[in-house]
């Protein structure tokens, strides 16, 4: 299923290193075990959403859609506007302009109807520490409109699915971070929502717990749930989401599948050149502009994409012949971080 040839090549003059890289995973729609039906009805549509807090424009005219069975990722650094966007989508905030359409109807024309369709997993662990996992699930189920017996039955099922049945009677305050996150997720699922909004649901937990949660979310999408997933983790967006919207400073800078976003860089190869580049002027280098596009340049590093179907060996040869002192050249497939770098001029991890 997943590409078996993740590759990243580190080149030091005279030496070639092959490094495995998560960023280099080449995922396609079909890698998720199913192919998204792009004709599927958008369950959620955000249209020209705008939100200001005084002088600050937190979300600036954002548009996106989430279809049934699709995981749509909103990727951006902290403060990019992800939570504000999700808050508008779930009705916690009213947009200053634009509209949120849930299953064809404006959210605010019937908020209760929209809320019955959606489940929301907040970024914070919003649970009652004094209550057990089962009691929390049952309470949130009743808040979602379930009868007490139905909430009880579904809580039992979810505890099994989330591998928490053996701790069901313990107070949530005694749970580990990963267990709390799982219950936090489960509390949004009791009423089997068709649209799930997840606001950074894996923040602050260990990699193993994160993998379990991501696996569970994939299962929900397979069952047809439309999922809006915000994150600032590149790996999550790359491996989980079928379509990704890159957001920064309240603006949706780019949107598409992972491969569509990678193609924005103009090619399938990215060269990272380390060296003394303070006074370098790549635009004046002979033939450089014909083959490469500068993504980012600093005093010590130059990131360039190679256009067309050029042979990596030829490209490397050309780069090593540049009129600058090159200490290292790394060849890799473009990642979302590179896309973000190109779009914003800085790395997502900064």
């Amino acid at each position, binding site marked *: 299923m997943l590409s078996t040839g993740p590759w990243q090549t580190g080149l030091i003059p005279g030496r070639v290193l092959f490094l495995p890289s998560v960023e280099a995973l080449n995922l396609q729609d079909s890698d998720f075990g199913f192919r998204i039906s792009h004709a599927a009805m958008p369950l959620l549509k955000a249209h020209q959403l705008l939100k200001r807090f005084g002088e600050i424009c937190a979300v600036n005219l954002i548009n996106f859609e989430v279809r049934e069975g699709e995981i749509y990722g909103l990727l951006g650094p902290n403060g990019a506007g992800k939570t504000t966007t999700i808050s508008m989508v779930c009705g916690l905030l009213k947009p200053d302009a634009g509209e949120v359409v849930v299953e064809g109807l404006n959210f605010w024309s019937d908020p209760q109807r929209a809320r019955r369709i959606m489940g929301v997993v907040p970024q914070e662990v919003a649970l009652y520490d004094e209550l057990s996992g089962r009691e929390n699930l049952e309470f949130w189920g009743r808040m*979602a*409109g379930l009868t007490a017996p139905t909430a009880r039955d579904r809580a039992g099922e979810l505890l099994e699915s989330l591998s928490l049945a053996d701790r069901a009677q313990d107070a949530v305050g005694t749970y580990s971070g990963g267990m709390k996150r799982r219950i936090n997720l489960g509390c949004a699922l009791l009423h089997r929502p068709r649209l799930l909004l997840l606001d950074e649901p894996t923040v602050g937990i260990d990699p193993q717990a994160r993998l379990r949660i991501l696996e569970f979310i994939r299962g929900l999408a397979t069952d047809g749930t439309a999922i809006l997933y915000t994150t600032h983790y590149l790996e999550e967006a790359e491996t989980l989401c079928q379509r990704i919207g890159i957001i920064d400073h309240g603006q949706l800078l780019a949107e598409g599948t992972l491969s569509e976003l990678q193609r924005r860089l103009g090619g399938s190869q990215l060269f990272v050149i380390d060296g003394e580049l303070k006074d370098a002027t790549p635009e004046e280098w002979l033939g450089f502009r014909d083959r490469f596009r500068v993504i980012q340049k600093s005093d010590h590093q130059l990131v360039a994409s190679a256009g067309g179907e050029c042979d990596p060996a030829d490209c490397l040869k050309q780069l090593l012949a540049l009129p600058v002192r090159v200490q290292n050249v790394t060849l890799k497939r473009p990642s979302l971080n590179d896309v973000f770098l190109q779009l914003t001029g800085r790395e997502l991890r900064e």
Partner: protein
Amino acid sequence: MRAGMRILAGMKRALDIGHNDLRIFFRQRAWYVWLFIMPLAFTYFMGFAVQGPGSPGAPQLGLLIENEDPGFLGGILLQELGEQGLRLLGPTNRNEAKRGLKIPPDFTERVLKKEKTSVGFFTVSGSGDEAAALVEVRLVRALIALHGHLVEHALATAGQPPSEDALRDLMRRENPVVLDSKYAGRKPIPTGFNLSLPGNLVMYLMMNLLIFGGATVAAERRSGVLRRLAVHPVSRAALVTGKIYGLMLLGCAQIALLLAVGRVLLGVDMSGRWFSILVTLLVYAWVAASLGVLIGSVVTAEEKIIGLCLLLSLPMAALGGCWWPLEIVPVPLQIVAHLIPTGWAMDALHQLISFGGGFAQAKEEIGVLLLFGAAANFAAAKCFRC
């Protein structure tokens, strides 16, 4: 039809929220101290500190009786003394007596002959002077009553000597003129457990519901629980109602315990007025719960809420007459007491507990409390933030 369904669904959610909040309150055992133990302890100790002769806990004053009169008038005098609230003691209970009364052997005989006679009032060795005046007053009242009956009989029979049956018959009749002279036309001043029970109920209800309400709302806002509730199909009205309802349930638990202990262990007489007392306390709990939610909505800093609630509830208790009767404070402070809900709640409870009034006597105070509740609830709903 659809609107009705929505209202029903909203009510169901409000009940669920309230029941859940109550469950969480009871899981936090440390709060039991403030909910139950402190109010009971303060009721008990304050009840003793402010005890008066009319207090339920105060024993009847004892009078040692040495009745040497073989006739019936000695017995009739003793009956009058009993009706004046004195406990008549024999020689075996001598150490419980505050004073003594000696009825001479010729008491009946001399009275029937219309001759002057005297009863002896004496000090019992070992008893103090503090209660002597009260015993003396009651003795004088009993003698006046006996004289009254003798005069009434003489007028009715043209001076015939009275028989025992005739006199007892007169005693059973309702007096044509009654002077309610207990407090010389003023309201009695509530004392003892009659003061400490409603006082502590009113104070601790306000304090606990302010603190628990404010702290819970602020903590749930910090943890994101309120925002999570807001993204469910739960209307704002149902959310605020549920929060207030949960606090009222907590108040009910406190009310039930204190009233039960007050009646069973402390002897506070509330018979026949339970309904009015419960209505008063429920309305008051609504006021306090709404104020608690209001504070939690307005004050975001969780750590400041407890201090603020204490700053509000303790002065309200003092000014409202929870610690001492309002009758003993200057008039300006009595006016201030009626600007705050504690003053009205204490007025209503004193009407019902100390003065023996019914719902009609407390309805004005309950009405004012309802206005306080409506205003606080409206403000809480208006200011509530997730």
